[in-house]
Protein backbone atom coordinates (compact mmCIF):
# COMPACT_ATOMS: atom_id res chain seq x y z
CA UNK A 1 0.00 0.00 0.00
CA UNK A 2 1.33 3.46 -0.91
CA UNK A 3 2.14 5.91 1.81
CA UNK A 4 -0.58 8.50 0.92
CA UNK A 5 -3.22 5.77 0.81
CA UNK A 6 -2.13 4.48 4.19
CA UNK A 7 -2.26 7.99 5.61
CA UNK A 8 -5.72 8.50 4.15
CA UNK A 9 -6.88 5.28 5.76
CA UNK A 10 -5.39 6.27 9.08
CA UNK A 11 -7.14 9.64 8.89
CA UNK A 12 -10.39 7.88 8.10
CA UNK A 13 -9.90 5.60 11.10
CA UNK A 14 -9.32 8.63 13.34
CA UNK A 15 -12.39 10.40 11.96
CA UNK A 16 -14.51 7.28 12.35
CA UNK A 17 -13.35 6.47 15.86
CA UNK A 18 -15.31 9.17 17.70
CA UNK A 19 -18.46 8.23 15.78
CA UNK A 20 -18.15 4.67 17.07
CA UNK A 21 -17.37 5.83 20.61
CA UNK A 22 -20.69 7.66 20.77
CA UNK A 23 -22.50 4.35 20.87
CA UNK A 24 -22.61 3.47 24.56
CA UNK A 25 -21.05 0.20 25.67
CA UNK A 26 -23.53 -2.59 26.40
CA UNK A 27 -24.75 -3.18 29.94
CA UNK A 28 -26.27 -6.44 31.09
CA UNK A 29 -27.27 -8.29 34.21
CA UNK A 30 -28.87 -11.67 34.84
CA UNK A 31 -29.92 -13.19 38.14
CA UNK A 32 -31.23 -16.50 39.40
CA UNK A 33 -33.13 -17.51 42.51
CA UNK A 34 -32.56 -21.23 42.22
CA UNK A 35 -33.34 -24.10 39.88
CA UNK A 36 -35.96 -26.77 40.36
CA UNK A 37 -37.34 -25.08 43.44
CA UNK A 38 -41.05 -25.47 43.14
CA UNK A 39 -43.25 -27.90 41.30
CA UNK A 40 -45.32 -25.80 38.84
CA UNK A 41 -48.40 -27.77 39.89
CA UNK A 42 -48.01 -26.52 43.46
CA UNK A 43 -47.20 -22.93 42.54
CA UNK A 44 -50.13 -20.72 43.50
CA UNK A 45 -50.60 -17.39 41.70
CA UNK A 46 -49.77 -15.60 44.97
CA UNK A 47 -46.50 -17.52 45.31
CA UNK A 48 -45.59 -16.85 41.71
CA UNK A 49 -46.28 -13.13 42.07
CA UNK A 50 -44.24 -12.98 45.24
CA UNK A 51 -41.22 -14.73 43.66
CA UNK A 52 -41.47 -12.48 40.62
CA UNK A 53 -41.51 -9.40 42.83
CA UNK A 54 -38.43 -10.65 44.69
CA UNK A 55 -36.57 -11.33 41.47
CA UNK A 56 -37.62 -7.98 39.97
CA UNK A 57 -36.36 -6.07 43.02
CA UNK A 58 -32.93 -7.71 42.78
CA UNK A 59 -32.72 -7.38 39.00
CA UNK A 60 -33.69 -3.72 38.90
CA UNK A 61 -31.45 -2.75 41.81
CA UNK A 62 -28.49 -4.34 40.05
CA UNK A 63 -29.35 -2.79 36.71
CA UNK A 64 -29.79 0.68 38.26
CA UNK A 65 -26.20 0.49 39.50
CA UNK A 66 -24.94 -0.37 36.00
CA UNK A 67 -27.03 2.40 34.48
CA UNK A 68 -25.54 4.97 36.85
CA UNK A 69 -22.06 3.97 35.74
CA UNK A 70 -21.49 1.61 38.65
CA UNK A 71 -19.35 -1.51 38.44
CA UNK A 72 -20.56 -5.00 37.65
CA UNK A 73 -19.07 -5.99 41.01
CA UNK A 74 -21.37 -3.57 42.82
CA UNK A 75 -24.33 -4.65 40.70
CA UNK A 76 -23.99 -8.37 41.45
CA UNK A 77 -23.32 -7.66 45.13
CA UNK A 78 -26.49 -5.56 45.42
CA UNK A 79 -28.67 -8.06 43.55
CA UNK A 80 -27.46 -11.02 45.63
CA UNK A 81 -27.72 -9.08 48.87
CA UNK A 82 -31.37 -8.29 48.17
CA UNK A 83 -32.14 -11.97 47.56
CA UNK A 84 -30.19 -12.94 50.71
CA UNK A 85 -32.45 -10.63 52.72
CA UNK A 86 -35.59 -12.01 51.05
CA UNK A 87 -36.76 -15.06 53.02
CA UNK A 88 -38.26 -16.73 49.93
CA UNK A 89 -34.84 -17.59 48.58
CA UNK A 90 -32.37 -20.14 49.86
CA UNK A 91 -29.62 -17.72 50.92
CA UNK A 92 -29.12 -15.48 53.94
CA UNK A 93 -32.38 -15.13 55.85
CA UNK A 94 -34.68 -17.98 54.91
CA UNK A 95 -31.82 -20.29 53.93
CA UNK A 96 -32.53 -24.01 54.21
CA UNK A 97 -31.49 -25.73 57.44
CA UNK A 98 -28.85 -28.41 57.89
CA UNK A 99 -29.30 -31.67 59.78
CA UNK A 100 -28.69 -29.86 63.09
CA UNK A 101 -31.35 -27.25 62.32
CA UNK A 102 -28.89 -24.46 61.54
CA UNK A 103 -28.43 -22.39 58.44
CA UNK A 104 -24.87 -22.88 57.19
CA UNK A 105 -24.13 -20.39 54.47
CA UNK A 106 -21.75 -20.29 51.51
CA UNK A 107 -21.06 -17.46 49.09
CA UNK A 108 -18.54 -16.37 46.47
CA UNK A 109 -17.87 -13.36 44.35
CA UNK A 110 -15.50 -12.96 41.42
CA UNK A 111 -14.28 -9.89 39.65
CA UNK A 112 -13.41 -10.63 36.03
CA UNK A 113 -10.90 -7.78 36.12
CA UNK A 114 -7.75 -9.36 37.56
CA UNK A 115 -9.38 -11.80 37.93
CA UNK A 116 -9.77 -11.86 41.70
CA UNK A 117 -12.16 -13.70 43.95
CA UNK A 118 -13.41 -14.06 47.51
CA UNK A 119 -15.52 -16.77 49.14
CA UNK A 120 -16.79 -18.02 52.46
CA UNK A 121 -18.25 -21.40 53.41
CA UNK A 122 -19.93 -22.88 56.44
CA UNK A 123 -20.66 -19.53 58.13
CA UNK A 124 -23.59 -19.50 60.53
CA UNK A 125 -23.78 -15.99 61.92
CA UNK A 126 -23.09 -13.63 59.01
CA UNK A 127 -26.17 -11.80 57.80
CA UNK A 128 -24.97 -11.20 54.26
CA UNK A 129 -22.41 -13.83 53.28
CA UNK A 130 -21.90 -12.17 49.88
CA UNK A 131 -20.58 -9.06 51.60
CA UNK A 132 -18.17 -11.13 53.66
CA UNK A 133 -17.01 -12.91 50.48
CA UNK A 134 -16.34 -9.51 48.99
CA UNK A 135 -14.35 -8.43 52.04
CA UNK A 136 -12.28 -11.62 51.75
CA UNK A 137 -11.51 -10.60 48.16
CA UNK A 138 -10.78 -6.96 48.94
CA UNK A 139 -9.31 -6.97 52.43
CA UNK A 140 -7.47 -10.27 52.77
CA UNK A 141 -4.74 -12.01 50.78
CA UNK A 142 -6.99 -15.09 50.65
CA UNK A 143 -9.75 -16.42 48.44
CA UNK A 144 -11.62 -18.86 50.67
CA UNK A 145 -12.25 -18.71 54.41
CA UNK A 146 -14.44 -21.27 56.15
CA UNK A 147 -16.50 -21.67 59.33
CA UNK A 148 -15.32 -20.05 62.58
CA UNK A 149 -12.20 -18.66 60.91
CA UNK A 150 -14.39 -16.82 58.42
CA UNK A 151 -16.53 -15.42 61.25
CA UNK A 152 -13.39 -14.34 63.09
CA UNK A 153 -12.38 -12.43 59.96
CA UNK A 154 -15.86 -10.88 59.81
CA UNK A 155 -15.46 -9.55 63.34
CA UNK A 156 -11.99 -8.20 62.54
CA UNK A 157 -13.53 -6.34 59.61
CA UNK A 158 -16.22 -4.80 61.78
CA UNK A 159 -19.03 -6.98 60.41
CA UNK A 160 -21.60 -7.51 63.16
CA UNK A 161 -22.63 -11.14 63.64
CA UNK A 162 -26.27 -12.10 64.07
CA UNK A 163 -27.74 -14.95 66.13
CA UNK A 164 -28.37 -18.19 64.22
CA UNK A 165 -32.06 -17.71 64.90
CA UNK A 166 -32.05 -14.77 62.46
CA UNK A 167 -31.86 -17.10 59.45
CA UNK A 168 -34.50 -19.60 60.54
CA UNK A 169 -38.01 -19.18 59.10
CA UNK A 170 -41.08 -21.24 59.88
CA UNK A 171 -41.24 -22.54 56.30
CA UNK A 172 -37.68 -23.86 56.47
CA UNK A 173 -38.25 -25.53 59.83
CA UNK A 174 -41.22 -27.37 58.31
CA UNK A 175 -39.15 -28.36 55.28
CA UNK A 176 -36.45 -29.78 57.53
CA UNK A 177 -38.99 -31.80 59.50
CA UNK A 178 -40.43 -33.12 56.25
CA UNK A 179 -36.96 -34.00 54.93
CA UNK A 180 -36.09 -35.83 58.15
CA UNK A 181 -39.35 -37.77 57.99
CA UNK A 182 -38.70 -38.74 54.37
CA UNK A 183 -35.08 -39.63 55.11
CA UNK A 184 -36.39 -42.21 57.56
CA UNK A 185 -38.60 -43.71 54.89
CA UNK A 186 -36.38 -43.72 51.85
CA UNK A 187 -32.74 -43.59 52.81
CA UNK A 188 -31.24 -43.63 49.33
CA UNK A 189 -33.19 -40.64 48.03
CA UNK A 190 -30.88 -38.23 46.26
CA UNK A 191 -31.30 -34.63 47.33
CA UNK A 192 -33.21 -32.55 44.83
CA UNK A 193 -31.69 -29.31 43.68
CA UNK A 194 -32.58 -26.41 45.87
CA UNK A 195 -32.66 -22.73 45.39
CA UNK A 196 -29.51 -20.71 45.45
CA UNK A 197 -29.22 -17.11 44.39
CA UNK A 198 -26.77 -15.59 41.98
CA UNK A 199 -26.04 -12.75 39.61
CA UNK A 200 -23.75 -12.03 36.69
CA UNK A 201 -23.16 -8.64 35.07
CA UNK A 202 -21.26 -6.63 32.47
CA UNK A 203 -20.61 -2.97 33.22
CA UNK A 204 -19.87 0.05 31.04
CA UNK A 205 -16.13 -0.33 31.55
CA UNK A 206 -16.32 -3.82 30.03
CA UNK A 207 -15.75 -5.65 33.31
CA UNK A 208 -17.57 -8.86 34.15
CA UNK A 209 -18.51 -10.09 37.62
CA UNK A 210 -20.32 -13.05 39.16
CA UNK A 211 -21.74 -13.69 42.63
CA UNK A 212 -23.52 -16.66 44.21
CA UNK A 213 -24.93 -17.26 47.70
CA UNK A 214 -26.70 -20.25 49.22
CA UNK A 215 -27.82 -22.17 52.25
CA UNK A 216 -27.11 -25.40 50.38
CA UNK A 217 -29.28 -28.48 50.84
CA UNK A 218 -32.06 -29.07 53.36
CA UNK A 219 -30.97 -31.57 56.02
CA UNK A 220 -27.39 -31.46 54.73
CA UNK A 221 -24.54 -32.89 56.75
CA UNK A 222 -22.88 -30.26 58.90
CA UNK A 223 -19.82 -28.95 57.08
CA UNK A 224 -21.07 -29.91 53.61
CA UNK A 225 -20.00 -27.34 51.04
CA UNK A 226 -21.55 -27.22 47.57
CA UNK A 227 -20.44 -25.49 44.40
CA UNK A 228 -21.54 -21.93 45.16
CA UNK A 229 -18.38 -20.81 47.02
CA UNK A 230 -16.08 -22.84 44.80
CA UNK A 231 -14.43 -20.61 42.23
CA UNK A 232 -14.72 -22.37 38.87
CA UNK A 233 -17.62 -24.62 39.95
CA UNK A 234 -20.57 -22.42 40.94
CA UNK A 235 -19.04 -19.00 40.36
CA UNK A 236 -16.56 -17.70 37.81
CA UNK A 237 -15.75 -14.48 35.96
CA UNK A 238 -12.98 -13.48 33.61
CA UNK A 239 -13.02 -10.32 31.51
CA UNK A 240 -11.54 -12.29 28.61
CA UNK A 241 -14.43 -14.73 28.37
CA UNK A 242 -17.54 -14.69 30.55
CA UNK A 243 -19.18 -14.58 33.98
CA UNK A 244 -21.22 -17.53 35.27
CA UNK A 245 -23.30 -18.36 38.35
CA UNK A 246 -24.78 -21.82 38.86
CA UNK A 247 -27.53 -23.46 40.87
CA UNK A 248 -28.44 -27.09 41.31
CA UNK A 249 -26.89 -30.28 42.60
CA UNK A 250 -23.63 -28.77 43.76
CA UNK A 251 -21.59 -31.95 43.85
CA UNK A 252 -22.03 -32.41 40.09
CA UNK A 253 -21.12 -28.79 39.46
CA UNK A 254 -17.89 -29.21 41.47
CA UNK A 255 -16.87 -32.40 39.69
CA UNK A 256 -17.40 -30.84 36.28
CA UNK A 257 -16.01 -27.42 37.19
CA UNK A 258 -19.12 -26.12 35.44
CA UNK A 259 -18.66 -22.33 35.59
CA UNK A 260 -15.07 -22.36 34.41
CA UNK A 261 -15.81 -25.02 31.80
CA UNK A 262 -18.32 -22.69 30.11
CA UNK A 263 -15.76 -19.90 29.94
CA UNK A 264 -13.06 -22.32 28.72
CA UNK A 265 -15.35 -23.38 25.83
CA UNK A 266 -15.92 -19.72 24.95
CA UNK A 267 -12.23 -18.87 25.15
CA UNK A 268 -10.65 -22.00 23.70
CA UNK A 269 -13.30 -23.52 21.44
CA UNK A 270 -14.68 -20.12 20.39
CA UNK A 271 -18.24 -21.28 21.03
CA UNK A 272 -20.87 -18.61 21.48
CA UNK A 273 -21.97 -18.14 25.07
CA UNK A 274 -25.32 -19.83 24.37
CA UNK A 275 -23.58 -22.81 22.74
CA UNK A 276 -21.11 -23.16 25.61
CA UNK A 277 -23.88 -23.01 28.22
CA UNK A 278 -25.94 -25.52 26.26
CA UNK A 279 -22.99 -27.88 25.93
CA UNK A 280 -22.12 -27.81 29.63
CA UNK A 281 -25.75 -28.26 30.72
CA UNK A 282 -25.90 -31.23 28.32
CA UNK A 283 -22.78 -32.73 29.93
CA UNK A 284 -24.32 -32.13 33.34
CA UNK A 285 -27.45 -34.04 32.36
CA UNK A 286 -25.29 -36.82 30.94
CA UNK A 287 -23.64 -37.39 34.34
CA UNK A 288 -26.99 -37.26 36.12
CA UNK A 289 -26.65 -33.76 37.54
CA UNK A 290 -29.54 -31.36 37.67
CA UNK A 291 -29.48 -27.58 37.72
CA UNK A 292 -28.97 -24.47 35.71
CA UNK A 293 -26.68 -21.54 35.04
CA UNK A 294 -26.84 -17.89 34.10
CA UNK A 295 -24.02 -16.33 32.13
CA UNK A 296 -23.04 -13.10 30.43
CA UNK A 297 -20.17 -12.45 28.04
CA UNK A 298 -18.07 -9.39 27.24
CA UNK A 299 -20.42 -8.38 24.40
CA UNK A 300 -23.36 -8.31 26.79
CA UNK A 301 -24.98 -11.53 25.55
CA UNK A 302 -26.96 -13.27 28.27
CA UNK A 303 -27.51 -17.03 28.37
CA UNK A 304 -29.71 -18.83 30.90
CA UNK A 305 -30.25 -22.56 30.69
CA UNK A 306 -31.24 -25.45 32.97
CA UNK A 307 -32.19 -29.11 32.88
CA UNK A 308 -34.46 -28.97 35.93
CA UNK A 309 -38.20 -28.29 35.93
CA UNK A 310 -37.62 -24.59 36.25
CA UNK A 311 -35.17 -21.91 37.21
CA UNK A 312 -36.18 -18.63 38.78
CA UNK A 313 -34.40 -16.05 36.68
CA UNK A 314 -34.31 -12.55 35.35
CA UNK A 315 -32.37 -10.66 32.69
CA UNK A 316 -32.05 -7.02 31.79
CA UNK A 317 -29.80 -5.17 29.37
CA UNK A 318 -29.18 -1.82 27.70
CA UNK A 319 -30.89 -3.01 24.50
CA UNK A 320 -34.21 -2.86 26.32
CA UNK A 321 -34.58 -6.47 27.35
CA UNK A 322 -36.17 -7.05 30.73
CA UNK A 323 -37.65 -10.39 31.57
CA UNK A 324 -38.40 -12.53 34.55
CA UNK A 325 -39.26 -16.19 34.20
CA UNK A 326 -39.61 -19.36 36.21
CA UNK A 327 -40.33 -22.30 33.96
CA UNK A 328 -39.30 -23.58 30.55
CA UNK A 329 -41.91 -21.63 28.58
CA UNK A 330 -40.46 -18.33 29.83
CA UNK A 331 -43.47 -17.91 32.11
Amino acid at each position, binding site marked *: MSRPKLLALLCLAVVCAPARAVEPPPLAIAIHGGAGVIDPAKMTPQHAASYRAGLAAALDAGYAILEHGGSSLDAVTAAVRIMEDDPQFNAGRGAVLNHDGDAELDAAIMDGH*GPRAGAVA*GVRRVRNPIELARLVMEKSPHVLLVAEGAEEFALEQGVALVPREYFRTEARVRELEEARRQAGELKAAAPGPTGTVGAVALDGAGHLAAATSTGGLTDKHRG*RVGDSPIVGAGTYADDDSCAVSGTGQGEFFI*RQVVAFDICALVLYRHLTLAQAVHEVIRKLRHTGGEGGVIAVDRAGNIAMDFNSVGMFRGARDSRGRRDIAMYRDAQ
Partner: protein
Amino acid sequence: MYAIAIHGGAGAVPRAMLSALREQRYRAGLEAALDAGFALLARGGSSLDAVSAAVRILEDDPSFNAGHGAALTRDGAAELDAAIMDGRQLRAGAVASVRHVKNPIELARRVMEKSRHVLLVGAGAEEFALEESFVLVPNHYFRTAERQEQLECEQRGERVSDLIPGAQGTVGAVALDGEGNLAAATSTGGMTNKRPGRVGDSPIIGAGTYAKNGVCAVSATGHGEYFIRAVAAHHVCAAVEYRGLDLQQAVREVLHEILGGLGGDGGLIAVGGDGQIVMDFSTEGMFRGARDSGGRREIAI
Protein backbone atom coordinates in the same frame (compact mmCIF):
# COMPACT_ATOMS: atom_id res chain seq x y z
CA MET B 1 1.43 -48.46 30.25
CA TYR B 2 1.24 -47.15 33.80
CA ALA B 3 2.88 -44.19 35.46
CA ILE B 4 2.99 -42.19 38.66
CA ALA B 5 4.39 -38.80 39.63
CA ILE B 6 4.52 -37.20 43.07
CA HIS B 7 5.47 -33.88 44.57
CA GLY B 8 6.42 -32.78 48.05
CA GLY B 9 5.94 -29.07 47.56
CA ALA B 10 7.49 -26.24 45.59
CA GLY B 11 9.20 -23.20 46.96
CA ALA B 12 12.36 -21.30 47.50
CA VAL B 13 14.78 -23.90 48.71
CA PRO B 14 18.20 -22.54 47.82
CA ARG B 15 20.31 -25.52 46.92
CA ALA B 16 23.25 -24.28 48.90
CA MET B 17 21.20 -24.03 52.06
CA LEU B 18 19.79 -27.49 51.81
CA SER B 19 22.16 -29.54 53.93
CA ALA B 20 23.27 -32.87 52.56
CA LEU B 21 21.62 -34.62 55.47
CA ARG B 22 18.32 -32.92 54.92
CA GLU B 23 18.40 -33.50 51.21
CA GLN B 24 18.93 -37.18 51.93
CA ARG B 25 15.86 -37.19 54.15
CA TYR B 26 13.62 -35.63 51.52
CA ARG B 27 14.86 -37.92 48.81
CA ALA B 28 14.24 -40.96 51.00
CA GLY B 29 10.70 -39.75 51.75
CA LEU B 30 9.92 -39.10 48.09
CA GLU B 31 11.36 -42.46 47.10
CA ALA B 32 9.27 -44.34 49.64
CA ALA B 33 6.07 -42.68 48.42
CA LEU B 34 6.91 -43.06 44.73
CA ASP B 35 7.86 -46.71 45.00
CA ALA B 36 4.86 -47.62 47.15
CA GLY B 37 2.51 -46.06 44.61
CA PHE B 38 4.35 -47.64 41.71
CA ALA B 39 4.34 -51.08 43.35
CA LEU B 40 0.56 -50.95 43.54
CA LEU B 41 0.31 -50.09 39.84
CA ALA B 42 2.77 -52.83 38.92
CA ARG B 43 0.59 -55.38 40.73
CA GLY B 44 -2.43 -54.29 38.71
CA GLY B 45 -3.79 -51.94 41.38
CA SER B 46 -5.81 -48.84 40.56
CA SER B 47 -4.44 -45.36 40.09
CA LEU B 48 -6.78 -44.31 42.92
CA ASP B 49 -5.07 -46.73 45.32
CA ALA B 50 -1.64 -45.67 44.06
CA VAL B 51 -2.16 -41.94 44.65
CA SER B 52 -3.83 -42.59 48.04
CA ALA B 53 -0.87 -44.71 49.17
CA ALA B 54 1.75 -42.26 47.96
CA VAL B 55 0.07 -39.26 49.58
CA ARG B 56 -0.54 -41.15 52.80
CA ILE B 57 3.17 -41.91 53.11
CA LEU B 58 4.04 -38.24 52.54
CA GLU B 59 1.40 -37.23 55.12
CA ASP B 60 3.02 -39.52 57.70
CA ASP B 61 6.51 -38.19 56.93
CA PRO B 62 7.22 -35.12 59.11
CA SER B 63 9.52 -33.62 56.47
CA PHE B 64 6.57 -32.65 54.30
CA ASN B 65 3.83 -30.10 54.84
CA ALA B 66 0.83 -32.44 55.18
CA GLY B 67 -0.45 -34.65 57.97
CA HIS B 68 2.23 -35.16 60.64
CA GLY B 69 4.60 -32.21 60.31
CA ALA B 70 2.11 -29.89 58.63
CA ALA B 71 2.68 -26.13 58.73
CA LEU B 72 1.00 -24.38 61.66
CA THR B 73 -1.63 -21.65 61.69
CA ARG B 74 -1.08 -18.35 63.45
CA ASP B 75 -2.72 -19.96 66.49
CA GLY B 76 -0.12 -22.74 66.47
CA ALA B 77 -2.51 -25.47 65.37
CA ALA B 78 -2.44 -27.68 62.28
CA GLU B 79 -5.42 -27.28 59.93
CA LEU B 80 -5.42 -29.75 57.09
CA ASP B 81 -6.91 -29.87 53.61
CA ALA B 82 -6.97 -32.73 51.10
CA ALA B 83 -8.69 -33.86 47.92
CA ILE B 84 -8.79 -36.90 45.70
CA MET B 85 -10.30 -37.37 42.26
CA ASP B 86 -11.05 -40.44 40.21
CA GLY B 87 -10.83 -39.66 36.49
CA ARG B 88 -13.12 -42.54 35.57
CA GLN B 89 -16.47 -40.98 36.43
CA LEU B 90 -15.19 -37.63 37.63
CA ARG B 91 -15.87 -38.68 41.19
CA ALA B 92 -14.20 -36.56 43.83
CA GLY B 93 -13.91 -36.12 47.59
CA ALA B 94 -12.31 -33.40 49.67
CA VAL B 95 -11.97 -32.12 53.21
CA ALA B 96 -10.80 -28.73 54.46
CA SER B 97 -9.82 -27.29 57.81
CA VAL B 98 -9.76 -30.57 59.70
CA ARG B 99 -7.69 -30.61 62.88
CA HIS B 100 -7.91 -34.13 64.21
CA VAL B 101 -7.74 -36.50 61.24
CA LYS B 102 -4.42 -38.34 60.97
CA ASN B 103 -4.62 -38.92 57.23
CA PRO B 104 -6.81 -36.31 55.57
CA ILE B 105 -6.41 -38.01 52.17
CA GLU B 106 -8.18 -41.09 53.54
CA LEU B 107 -11.04 -38.98 54.82
CA ALA B 108 -11.27 -37.24 51.42
CA ARG B 109 -11.50 -40.65 49.79
CA ARG B 110 -14.20 -41.67 52.24
CA VAL B 111 -16.17 -38.52 51.39
CA MET B 112 -15.98 -39.56 47.74
CA GLU B 113 -16.94 -43.17 48.34
CA LYS B 114 -19.36 -43.08 51.26
CA SER B 115 -21.15 -39.74 51.13
CA ARG B 116 -23.31 -37.93 48.62
CA HIS B 117 -20.97 -34.98 48.92
CA VAL B 118 -17.70 -33.77 47.50
CA LEU B 119 -16.47 -31.30 50.10
CA LEU B 120 -16.85 -31.34 53.88
CA VAL B 121 -15.19 -28.74 56.10
CA GLY B 122 -14.26 -28.14 59.73
CA ALA B 123 -16.12 -29.78 62.59
CA GLY B 124 -18.68 -31.25 60.18
CA ALA B 125 -15.94 -33.14 58.34
CA GLU B 126 -14.67 -34.54 61.64
CA GLU B 127 -18.21 -35.53 62.57
CA PHE B 128 -18.35 -37.48 59.30
CA ALA B 129 -14.97 -39.05 60.15
CA LEU B 130 -16.39 -40.33 63.44
CA GLU B 131 -19.51 -41.63 61.70
CA GLU B 132 -17.15 -43.54 59.40
CA SER B 133 -15.26 -44.98 62.41
CA PHE B 134 -12.09 -42.93 61.97
CA VAL B 135 -10.14 -42.51 65.21
CA LEU B 136 -9.41 -38.83 65.76
CA VAL B 137 -6.00 -37.74 67.04
CA PRO B 138 -5.12 -34.73 69.20
CA ASN B 139 -3.94 -31.70 67.27
CA HIS B 140 -0.46 -31.92 68.80
CA TYR B 141 0.07 -35.16 66.86
CA PHE B 142 0.71 -32.99 63.79
CA ARG B 143 3.02 -30.48 65.46
CA THR B 144 6.78 -30.91 65.17
CA ALA B 145 9.59 -28.85 66.72
CA GLU B 146 10.69 -27.73 63.26
CA ARG B 147 7.24 -26.40 62.37
CA GLN B 148 6.99 -24.66 65.72
CA GLU B 149 10.33 -22.99 65.08
CA GLN B 150 9.24 -22.07 61.57
CA LEU B 151 6.05 -20.48 62.88
CA GLU B 152 7.99 -18.47 65.47
CA CYS B 153 10.46 -17.27 62.83
CA GLU B 154 7.58 -16.23 60.58
CA GLN B 155 5.85 -14.41 63.42
CA ARG B 156 9.07 -12.55 64.17
CA GLY B 157 9.09 -11.53 60.51
CA GLU B 158 12.11 -13.59 59.49
CA ARG B 159 12.32 -15.54 56.28
CA VAL B 160 12.48 -19.24 56.89
CA SER B 161 12.61 -20.66 53.41
CA ASP B 162 15.61 -22.85 54.05
CA LEU B 163 14.19 -24.78 56.96
CA ILE B 164 11.94 -27.35 55.40
CA PRO B 165 9.48 -27.27 52.53
CA GLY B 166 7.03 -25.18 54.34
CA ALA B 167 5.44 -21.93 53.54
CA GLN B 168 3.96 -23.15 50.28
CA GLY B 169 4.56 -26.87 50.54
CA THR B 170 1.93 -29.43 49.75
CA VAL B 171 2.13 -33.07 48.76
CA GLY B 172 0.44 -34.70 45.84
CA ALA B 173 0.37 -37.58 43.40
CA VAL B 174 -1.05 -38.30 39.97
CA ALA B 175 -1.21 -41.71 38.31
CA LEU B 176 -2.35 -43.70 35.30
CA ASP B 177 -3.08 -47.38 35.85
CA GLY B 178 -2.99 -50.34 33.47
CA GLU B 179 -6.69 -49.97 32.74
CA GLY B 180 -6.27 -46.40 31.56
CA ASN B 181 -7.79 -44.78 34.64
CA LEU B 182 -6.34 -41.50 35.86
CA ALA B 183 -6.37 -40.25 39.46
CA ALA B 184 -5.02 -37.28 41.39
CA ALA B 185 -4.59 -36.59 45.12
CA THR B 186 -3.30 -33.60 47.07
CA SER B 187 -2.87 -32.94 50.80
CA THR B 188 -1.53 -29.98 52.73
CA GLY B 189 -1.24 -28.04 55.95
CA GLY B 190 -1.38 -24.83 53.95
CA MET B 191 0.71 -21.77 54.64
CA THR B 192 2.75 -21.27 57.80
CA ASN B 193 1.15 -18.66 60.07
CA LYS B 194 -2.08 -18.78 58.06
CA ARG B 195 -5.31 -17.41 59.41
CA PRO B 196 -7.52 -20.16 60.88
CA GLY B 197 -10.17 -21.13 58.33
CA ARG B 198 -8.06 -20.18 55.32
CA VAL B 199 -8.43 -22.79 52.61
CA GLY B 200 -6.02 -22.97 49.69
CA ASP B 201 -6.25 -24.72 46.35
CA SER B 202 -5.43 -28.29 47.41
CA PRO B 203 -8.98 -29.37 48.38
CA ILE B 204 -10.60 -27.37 45.59
CA ILE B 205 -11.53 -29.63 42.70
CA GLY B 206 -10.33 -27.92 39.53
CA ALA B 207 -7.82 -25.68 41.33
CA GLY B 208 -5.28 -27.91 43.10
CA THR B 209 -6.56 -31.33 42.10
CA TYR B 210 -8.24 -32.67 38.95
CA ALA B 211 -8.46 -35.88 36.95
CA LYS B 212 -10.39 -36.83 33.85
CA ASN B 213 -9.82 -40.07 31.99
CA GLY B 214 -8.33 -39.70 28.54
CA VAL B 215 -7.25 -36.13 29.26
CA CYS B 216 -5.06 -35.69 32.32
CA ALA B 217 -4.62 -35.87 36.09
CA VAL B 218 -3.08 -32.86 37.82
CA SER B 219 -1.90 -31.99 41.34
CA ALA B 220 -0.65 -28.52 42.21
CA THR B 221 1.53 -26.89 44.83
CA GLY B 222 2.24 -23.24 45.36
CA HIS B 223 0.53 -20.02 46.27
CA GLY B 224 -2.99 -21.45 46.56
CA GLU B 225 -4.99 -18.28 46.09
CA TYR B 226 -3.61 -17.83 42.58
CA PHE B 227 -4.23 -21.45 41.70
CA ILE B 228 -7.87 -21.06 42.76
CA ARG B 229 -8.41 -17.96 40.64
CA ALA B 230 -6.75 -19.59 37.64
CA VAL B 231 -8.70 -22.85 38.20
CA ALA B 232 -5.21 -24.22 37.50
CA ALA B 233 -5.65 -28.01 37.49
CA HIS B 234 -8.78 -28.02 35.35
CA HIS B 235 -7.27 -25.31 33.20
CA VAL B 236 -4.46 -27.69 32.20
CA CYS B 237 -7.04 -30.32 31.23
CA ALA B 238 -9.15 -27.76 29.33
CA ALA B 239 -6.09 -26.61 27.38
CA VAL B 240 -5.40 -30.24 26.41
CA GLU B 241 -9.00 -31.17 25.64
CA TYR B 242 -10.26 -28.00 23.97
CA ARG B 243 -7.16 -26.68 22.27
CA GLY B 244 -5.39 -29.93 21.60
CA LEU B 245 -2.23 -28.75 23.33
CA ASP B 246 0.40 -31.27 24.28
CA LEU B 247 0.36 -31.88 28.06
CA GLN B 248 3.76 -30.29 28.47
CA GLN B 249 2.70 -27.13 26.60
CA ALA B 250 -0.54 -26.97 28.59
CA VAL B 251 1.27 -27.21 31.93
CA ARG B 252 3.87 -24.67 30.86
CA GLU B 253 1.26 -22.21 29.67
CA VAL B 254 -0.91 -22.44 32.78
CA LEU B 255 2.10 -22.20 35.07
CA HIS B 256 4.11 -19.48 33.37
CA GLU B 257 1.60 -17.44 31.42
CA ILE B 258 -1.68 -17.68 33.33
CA LEU B 259 -0.42 -18.08 36.90
CA GLY B 260 2.68 -16.04 36.12
CA GLY B 261 0.44 -13.33 34.67
CA LEU B 262 -1.51 -13.19 37.91
CA GLY B 263 1.72 -13.01 39.90
CA GLY B 264 1.51 -16.47 41.44
CA ASP B 265 4.19 -19.12 41.55
CA GLY B 266 4.36 -22.82 42.33
CA GLY B 267 4.46 -26.13 40.55
CA LEU B 268 2.32 -28.70 38.79
CA ILE B 269 2.64 -32.40 38.20
CA ALA B 270 0.50 -34.05 35.56
CA VAL B 271 0.09 -37.35 33.80
CA GLY B 272 -1.73 -37.76 30.50
CA GLY B 273 -4.03 -40.48 29.27
CA ASP B 274 -1.05 -41.95 27.41
CA GLY B 275 1.18 -42.03 30.50
CA GLN B 276 3.23 -38.96 29.66
CA ILE B 277 4.50 -37.35 32.87
CA VAL B 278 5.05 -33.59 33.13
CA MET B 279 6.52 -31.86 36.17
CA ASP B 280 7.11 -28.14 35.97
CA PHE B 281 7.48 -25.24 38.41
CA SER B 282 8.09 -21.52 38.50
CA THR B 283 9.76 -21.54 41.93
CA GLU B 284 13.41 -22.32 42.61
CA GLY B 285 12.69 -25.92 43.27
CA MET B 286 10.03 -28.58 43.61
CA PHE B 287 10.43 -31.84 45.47
CA ARG B 288 9.30 -34.40 42.92
CA GLY B 289 9.52 -37.91 41.62
CA ALA B 290 8.33 -39.86 38.58
CA ARG B 291 8.25 -43.52 37.67
CA ASP B 292 6.64 -45.40 34.80
CA SER B 293 6.38 -48.85 33.28
CA GLY B 294 8.78 -47.77 30.53
CA GLY B 295 11.63 -47.84 33.07
CA ARG B 296 11.79 -44.17 34.00
CA ARG B 297 12.51 -43.53 37.67
CA GLU B 298 13.71 -40.20 38.95
CA ILE B 299 13.70 -38.11 42.09
CA ALA B 300 14.63 -34.43 41.91
CA ILE B 301 14.55 -31.23 43.91
